[in-house]
């Protein structure tokens, strides 16, 4: 049985990745990380960012809101201290990057392309907790900006590029097409949905940043629809993200057009979720007598 899939130049041993910001080498104490299809690391920026004030997380019905704010120690620390820890990992390592404009994205791509342990780049154009540059809005909310950032990165790296888009837009197809036109090898759908929660006793928002990104099972149907819509508009692979808790969720995303999936919030709920999903996929394929996981991609039956 073949669990392998291809994303750009990356040949994944299975379609299960862990999503940016939800995974750390700490989980290596709980399971063998070499089983994962790929690891997407926490988003890094050129300079260190301290992130947003507390409280940064809160639980909502079947989901969680976060407003971390891309806390990270910057690209130099990443190269010197984070990457070496994954030197021996026998799985693909994908660096997630965010810049305030195309020049910063280019610079990050340029520096990371020289790192042996970085196998691909995920462009985080869509973190809902920070605004980019002088603009009020996210790059992922402006199709021209998406196109330009992807194009600029494409010119400065030979690595596979995955563009992570925002679901907080009117028509996801437009943005998926812009990423494809810019030269992205794949797109990742979706980042978190902007949300809010209020403590009725204190009458204060539950998050220090007032609004934050909603993730978890609550968003799964919304993300699934985005993947389905985008898959009809573009030819490059899609990586499905959004409330994937078990192999059934993963299969749904693949049937709707995803070539691979990322596990996010589920890592917090059950750190072993990604490896359980891989096992579940295998058993599902066996049971359905399907010899290759890629046969699931876009195989949803309509009517």
């Amino acid at each position: 049985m073949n669990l392998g899939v291809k994303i750009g130049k990356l040949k994944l041993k299975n379609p299960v990745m862990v999503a940016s910001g939800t995974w750390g080498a700490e989980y290596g104490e709980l399971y063998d990380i070499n089983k994962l299809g790929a690891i997407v690391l926490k988003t890094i920026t050129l300079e260190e960012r301290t992130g947003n004030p507390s409280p940064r997380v809160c639980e909502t019905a079947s989901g969680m809101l976060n407003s971390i704010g891309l806390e990270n120690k910057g690209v130099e620390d990443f190269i010197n201290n984070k990457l070496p820890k994954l030197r021996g990992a026998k799985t693909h390592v994908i660096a997630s990057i965010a810049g305030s404009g195309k020049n910063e994205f280019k610079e990050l791509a340029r520096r990371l392309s020289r790192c042996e342990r970085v196998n691909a780049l995920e462009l985080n154009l869509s973190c809902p907790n920070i605004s980019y540059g002088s603009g009020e809005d996210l790059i992922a909310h402006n199709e021209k900006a998406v196109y330009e950032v992807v194009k600029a990165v494409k010119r400065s790296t030979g690595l596979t590029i995955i563009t992570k888009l925002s679901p907080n837009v009117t028509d996801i197809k437009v943005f998926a097409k812009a990423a494809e036109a810019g030269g992205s090898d794949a797109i990742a759908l979706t980042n978190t949905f902007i949300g809010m929660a209020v403590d009725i006793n204190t009458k204060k928002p539950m998050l220090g940043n007032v609004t934050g990104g909603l993730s978890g099972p609550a968003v799964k149907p919304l993300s699934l629809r985005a993947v389905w819509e985008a898959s009809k508009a573009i030819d490059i692979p899609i990586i499905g993200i959004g409330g994937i808790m078990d192999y059934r969720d993963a299969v749904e995303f693949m049937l709707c057009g995803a070539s691979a999936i990322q596990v996010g919030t589920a890592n917090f709920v059950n750190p072993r979720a990604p490896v359980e999903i891989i096992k579940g996929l295998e058993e599902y394929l066996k049971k359905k007598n399907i010899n290759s996981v890629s046969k699931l991609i876009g195989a949803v039956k309509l009517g």
Partner: protein
Amino acid sequence: MRQLKAEILSNKKVGSGFYRMKLGENYLAKITRAGQFVEVRCSSGAETLLRRPLGVHRIWPDGIEMLYEVVGKGTALLSEKKAGEKLDMIGPLGNGFDTDLASDINILVAGGIGVAPLTALAENLRARQNKKVHVMIGARTRSHIMCKEEFKSLGCSVKISTDDGSRGYKGFATELLINLLATCKPETYLPQFRRVMVYACGPMEMLRAVRAITLKRGIPCQVSLEERMACGVGVCLGCPVKMKTGGYKMVCKDGPVFNTEDLAW
């Protein structure tokens, strides 16, 4: 740390809204230190999605015990669990109290459910190091006073305060702390002698007050902080605390115990 399914040995109501849960688990019994915590899953569905961090209250030869207060949906579900059921948990997590530098006089200040991790600490200080331990317990009212007898049986001297004066001193545990320190000879707590150490766990306002009291007198102080968490292992960066040196540290991984002099409060 491990992710494991620990058997619930007992889960009993012990006061208004307070529960004690004992778990049989040799691994946790062997390696857990006072001040560490576990992340427990309160339901297997998405009803309460995130794990809840619970401080370890006692460390027994065959397992650990938690003392928790029902404050929301998660802890309410937890209180319904029965002996014999398995609880999905990750632990032990966090750094725990630093007792290597345990002083001759150790003062524990507990506010509300903050008594939970301080009991394990008192046991460590008494049983392993035979240190003098004073405990100040602050509670809202009489029925909320927890662990008094446990501290006493460990050989600690215990003072009680209640907000409404229904038992012990009427006022806050921090006032008991001020009173106790007033009876100490200056040479016992002058910074150069470092013979007094204060450990505190409780509401944020109480911890801030304890910090101010100890800082003013140059007494070292460790506080155990509470914060909303998602992962509990330092991955999500959801539980920040601002540090004096700039930036944040994570309550889950770098704490939950911090030296107050390091915090930017």
